[in-house]
């Protein structure tokens, strides 16, 4: 297991936000974290990234794995151009880095924007730069916090394809936080559902569908219905044959 999380909990002051969250992520797996706003998804991700050290429980990450993080906001450095922001995480030869960064900027559709400063970008453009900045470093583990939520449906689809393409090439382990059930179903091998107060891991669902998946397919539709029912708390409606319960090996 590349990432193992054991009885993860987190308090902010008096408020217990997370409690007893257990899961693990295998090498090259794509796992989505799903849950309502404010339930603690970003908190889990920040703990995984090592940005937040005040959690309870334990997180183990295989040695030598380089982590990339795409934040919920773009977080570009305002004093650097788009190109310089994109090469920020790269070491070594400047010219090679810039070439590489340009390739990724082209992949996210921002070839023309390399000389602009962050204040000159739209929200979606800035987020795409942030995506390029993380992808260009080719991390072993990629943590994404609602990376596509600021984008229009079409760009979103393109970037989801890009993510899958990169995943196909370098088998990055991906943990993705999202609000978007379609996105979670389209991309992931597993969907983790955070629910309750404090949030616990309510479900660990294996999406046993082969890739490439077709977005409009009936099986995805069935999954979506089940997930929506789960989110509403209606346990009864969902199809157990498709699901692996928490703790069970898929």
């Amino acid at each position, binding site marked *: 297991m590349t990432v193992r999380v054991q009885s993860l909990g987190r308090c902010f002051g008096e408020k217990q936000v997370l409690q007893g969250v257990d899961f693990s992520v295998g090498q090259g797996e794509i796992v989505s974290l799903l849950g309502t706003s404010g339930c603690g998804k970003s908190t889990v991700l920040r703990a995984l*990234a*090592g*940005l937040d050290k005040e959690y309870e429980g334990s997180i183990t990450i295989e040695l030598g794995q380089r*982590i*990339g*993080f795409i*934040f919920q*906001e773009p*977080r570009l*450095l*305002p*004093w*650097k151009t788009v190109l310089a922001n994109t090469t*920020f*995480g790269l070491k070594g030869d400047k010219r090679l880095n810039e070439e590489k960064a340009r390739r990724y900027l082209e992949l996210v559709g921002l070839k023309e924007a390399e000389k602009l*400063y*962050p*204040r000159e970008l739209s929200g979606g453009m800035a987020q795409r730069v942030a995506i390029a900045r993380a992808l260009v*470093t080719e991390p072993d583990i990629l943590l994404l916090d609602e990376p596509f939520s600021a984008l229009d449906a079409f760009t979103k689809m393109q970037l989801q394809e890009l993510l899958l393409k990169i995943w196909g090439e370098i088998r990055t382990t991906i943990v993705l936080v999202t609000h978007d059930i379609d996105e979670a179903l389209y991309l992931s091998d597993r969907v983790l559902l955070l629910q309750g107060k404090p949030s616990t891991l309510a479900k660990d669902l294996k999406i046993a569908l082969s890739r490439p998946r077709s977005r409009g397919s009936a099986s995805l539709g069935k999954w979506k219905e089940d997930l929506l029912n789960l989110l509403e708390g209606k346990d009864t409606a969902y199809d157990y044959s498709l699901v692996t319960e928490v703790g069970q090996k898929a």
Partner: protein
Amino acid sequence: MWKKLRTHPVLLGSLLPILLVAVWEIMSRAGIIPAYQLPAPSAILSTILAYVQDGSLQDHILLTVYRLFVGFVIGTIAAILLGTLVGYSELAERIFDPLMQAFRSIPSLAWVPLFILWMGIGESSKVTLIAVGVFFPVYLNIVDGIRGVDRKLIEVGRMYGLDGVALVRRIILPASLPSFLTGLRSGLGLGWMFVVAAEIMGASQGLGYLLILGQNTYAPDVIIASIFLFALLGKLTDWVLKLIQKRSLHWQDTALAK
């Protein structure tokens, strides 16, 4: 004509000064203002020209600017070193900041007798005084600037494996640059104030010396001439810093940025 005047900022702003100078000139010539108290603008101008012609004004100005420059650089470097340390490390803050706050509450001119006692009235005491004056605004702004750096940007740095010096250099310093430049400008302003103080306390050359010379020889034209030159030079140096500020902060997304 009126419309052009109203929209052109320089024209509009210089209207009142020109008017005042004209009234002043007329009243001086008419003998309403006694010349031994306030000589006419034309008299002051000819005093300046006379100093220029015998070459001494250039020397006075050069020496004053030189003192200011050396003191400014020393004060700024000290402020950068200590300010970065205190802003970045909480331990350093707890060690240094109470002392700094205590020193800051001493009006800097109160140091003058001590510096003269220690170093005499030569260059070193003057430069030290100026450096002390420049130090505090720069120091305070650097500390504030570093404290004010967005935690979110620091996290970006950490995610890309930066810490310690690399984090300071690549995230913290550029992010606190606006505040640092503000500090430089107010430090420079104080520097000018202290160069006057330093030169008044004893100098045989410099614009501040001209002030004292004017006082001792009952020559208000010399005093006003050097006041005018101080204002001119102060504005000029501030303008240079302002230009640097504008150049290096063009990325800022503020109401004033264009």
